[in-house]
């Protein structure tokens, strides 16, 4: 059976979630491997949310918010960027390939970009294969 990745996406209410909505209403087609979790701002995505997703077997995690300068809470996306940088230093030390964690900026009007990003990410992770956590007992 072909490997179908599960990707958890933390998307901000104001930009990327709205873009996802727009992709839907525009009837754009993208793979159904993504599980969207709407948050008010990427600045509220504590590293532990990402860690939990990986430990529960997510094959990849996407954090996506407003473009720099567009954050509805002024600077939440800049804070998110530091946290993703931090996680990119930590998770690969335990065997998680860096490609499994992605940060993007997708604005509210970027429905096409949202669909493209998901399509691209799914094919990349499909090629990479399942996460090391799958089928293992993680304490």
């Amino acid at each position: 059976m072909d490997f179908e990745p599960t990707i958890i996406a933390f998307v901000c209410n104001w930009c990327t979630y709205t873009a996802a909505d727009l992709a839907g209403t525009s009837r754009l087609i993208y793979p159904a491997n993504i599980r969207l979790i709407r948050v008010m701002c990427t600045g509220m995505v504590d590293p532990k949310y990402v860690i939990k997703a990986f430990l529960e077997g997510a094959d990849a995690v996407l954090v996506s918010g407003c473009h720099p300068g567009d954050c509805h809470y002024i600077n939440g996306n800049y804070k998110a960027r530091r946290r993703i940088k931090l996680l990119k230093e930590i998770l690969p030390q335990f065997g998680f390939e860096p490609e499994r964690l992605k940060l993007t900026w997708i604005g509210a009007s970027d429905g096409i970009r949202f669909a493209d990003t998901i399509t691209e990410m799914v094919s990349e992770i499909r090629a990479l294969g399942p996460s090391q956590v799958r089928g293992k007992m993680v304490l």
Partner: protein
Amino acid sequence: MATTAKINVKHQDFLASLQAFFKSVLQQNDIGALLVPQHLPMKDVVMPTIVTDPEALDAADPLAPTFPLNAATLLSRLTRKPLETTIAAVLRPCEIRAFIELVKLKQGRTENLIIIGTDCLGAYPNNDYARVVEKEGSETTRKFYQNVLSGKNPPLEGFQVARACQACEHPVPEGADIVIELFGVDTEHEMFLEARTPAGEKLLAALNLPSAKEPDQRKKAIQTVVNERITYRDQMFDETRKRTETIEKLTRYLAGCVNCYNCRVACPVCYCRECVFVTDVFDHEPSQYLRWADRKKSIKLPTDTIFYHLTRLSHISTACVGCGQCTNACPNNIPVMELFRMVAHKTQQAFDYEPGRSLEEPPPLSVFKETEFPDLTGETEQLNH
């Protein structure tokens, strides 16, 4: 720049001279209390004490090769609100660095505080220290510092200092107002005190001590120690990396963890007043456990063990000073310090941050720049389009 003062050591008793120095500090009008490790009267355990009477310093011993806890947490409690008097605190370098991190997080204050740091020769794990004292008795401290300074390894027969100390590249107290120098010093005959801040200079001046030049061999002695420790540290990183480089290996590494959270309690820089892992968030519904077990065939209890350690790594590794109290506190002998230092080394490098280096450097996760880490979001690529 820095002023150095010299005290002649009488009867080759460095510790007595040190106690006399503490006494003279506490006799200053503006200094109301001294935080200093002392041998407890009821058992030979060395714990931080607050002393207000200059005559009550006979058991003070900051050179005893033990520190059952990192005193930064205690100093944070003492300085949480303004005091009417000045406190002088005698600390190890890792305690000072942890305290500086807490001050940045508004969990401590440097106002009305004099930090007296000692060159650090290392300390034994708690369990070992009790055995060392059983063997060496009241001579433990003296034999220890003499042997370390003369290059004897191991310093006391049969016992090695904690791995955290062997891997510590910060043996000299950087954030101190006054440094009690040990490396490169003939401790049988002399004691050198170095003032590193205006507050430290003021105190040394008030004590009327003759100024002196720092011993010539000191810089070299420090460099030798630092080099040895860095070599040890890097080897420790390599070993730890091999043991934890996949989630399966990490799981094996942490398999003995019973979620007691002692490492978190002992950690001086784990800063939350209430840890999320003891809140309702982790008070799962009983049926939730069964659902998890259903999905994964079986789950280990207590749950969220790896989750806990990875979360702590992400929250505090940038502030980790490598004091090793996490390992000291582990009831199941998990080498927690090795794991945290290995990860911290990377995360601190990523933000060009060194905990305790400066009060002026904000914790990296509390700030940001508008333009940074462009590779994370592929912005360099986009600009070319």
